[in-house]
């Protein structure tokens, strides 16, 4: 099977928010196959590398099989938190959009499974 580079935004939905200085992203797979892929490919190391100095602490990922989603927690990730941060996006609502730009390599036919 030929491989293809896709962005997470092509195969997932996302919504993100905050608690203090913790950014939280819900990454929702758009098919069974995509869920199996993101469980393997979207790792704390890759997420940290993707956000560079915007995420200073640990990244923890919780799988949610019932919703085919990953619950991603990123510590020290909001420039101090809603009330202290200098960012325009004080509550990290766009952090999911940021993650959605991450590229991963998938089998070419995966895109056809996305609804």
């Amino acid at each position, binding site marked *: 099977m030929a491989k293809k580079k896709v962005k997470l935004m092509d195969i997932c939905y996302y919504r993100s928010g905050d608690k203090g200085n913790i950014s*939280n992203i*819900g990454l*929702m797979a758009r098919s069974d196959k995509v869920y199996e892929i993101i469980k393997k490919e979207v790792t704390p190391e890759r997420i940290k590398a993707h956000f560079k100095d*915007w995420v200073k602490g640990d990244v923890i990922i919780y799988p949610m*099989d*019932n*919703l085919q989603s990953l619950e991603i927690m990123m510590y020290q990730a909001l420039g101090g938190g809603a*009330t202290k941060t200098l960012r*325009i996006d004080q509550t990290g609502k766009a952090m999911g959009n940021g993650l959605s730009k*991450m590229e991963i390599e998938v089998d070419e036919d995966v895109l056809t499974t996305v609804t």
Partner: protein
Amino acid sequence: MKKVRVGAGSSGWPDFKDGALDVAQNGDIDYISFDHLAELTMAILQNQYAKDQTRGYIPEVIPLMKSLLPIWKEKDKHFKMCSNGGGANPPECANQVLKLAQDLNLGGIKIGVITGDTIPLSRLDDLRKQGWNFINADTGVDDLEKVRDRLLAAYVYTGADEIIDAYSQGADLVIGGRLSDNSLYIGNFMYPLGWQFTDEYWDRIGAGVCVGHLLECSSWSAGTCSNLWEEIDYPKGNPGFPIAEMYENGDCIVSKTETSGGAIRVQTLKEHLVYEVHDPENYIMPDGICDLTQIKLEQIDKDAVKVTKFADKSRGKPRPENLKLCLAYNDGFISEEITIVCGPKVFKQAEKAHEFVLRRLDHLGLKPREMLWSIIGWDSLCGPTVGAPPPDYDPPEIGIRVAFKCDTKEEARACRTECGHLCWGSLGVGAGFTNPPAIRPVFALYPTLIPREAVPLKLEIKEVK
């Protein structure tokens, strides 16, 4: 099976007022709840209350009630209401609502007023002396000493116990302070369905915590801020607010009125179930802990989704022994400025301005504690994830935003005016100025825990004569 219909009324300040009115008018509801408080709002309200004892509540409660009480009056089925809009001053908020009710000839209406969620700072010191550690949830250590002399306010996210008490004493409307968003809804499930804080009910309370989460952000479960935004419509410009039909066994149907826009789909609920929950197996709220991995969503009609059990495991666990305590403290001042750069060569101009500002700070001896430089139209929201702009990309215009954090207001102003604003000096012709937002004090938050028994809450029932 016994059931109760609970509507969402508000998710913050401000929210679509017509959403609540639509739910009350057309939602055939038994209960409706109003959350008005964001993480920081209580600190602002406590500050207001300290200066003027007739303030400190959410002013929006009054016009909202002015519109709602007439609907309440004309309905044969008088729905019950629950609100945390009392903020730092629930008694005064209740007094104002009582006056409204009197003007509307609503004799006999009862208001439950809950107080005690605001903790005097001296009690924190007492608890520390007794050996309690206020571990900072952000850092994992008790470093309260560092901020003790800058503390402004302390407030506890409280649970549904007093809401349930208020209903059982006949309250039609409950007004509290920092009642947790989730508890505003849990009380509405537990009281009418007879659920107790005992082992038999944790599964159902867990389900209630989940559904409370789905309701507490109002339209956010019904298609606003959604990945499906392109296909979701608002024919009359009114987003729908979710309504939960909760059954005795904890299963539930979430829907919305036909008179509102938006949508209730598995996807719109799913995106809210993954929103701000952290460890999904332990979504901790004052009244119970929900295991969100045990929830199943199923579309049963247009704009109706059934929320049930995913497997044969409990959806809930016993409520935590401690409550969430937020401490707010002063932490300097933030100033910011936006300048619009007109092309050509927008990114090159912005780069030059950046260098100019850094040199000027140095030249003037200004030392902001933090500075953030971002480009609106490129990286202001997603930061480093967007990389550098491609060399051949030159949009007609971009915005430069610079923000400073300083110890004093004077220094924050100097950074903004002398450097942020005057950065136009280094740009080409055609820079556009904007009116900068006011310099704002930083109320930093120190999230921690407090033992439940250290938070004595008080319920008072007031009645309209």
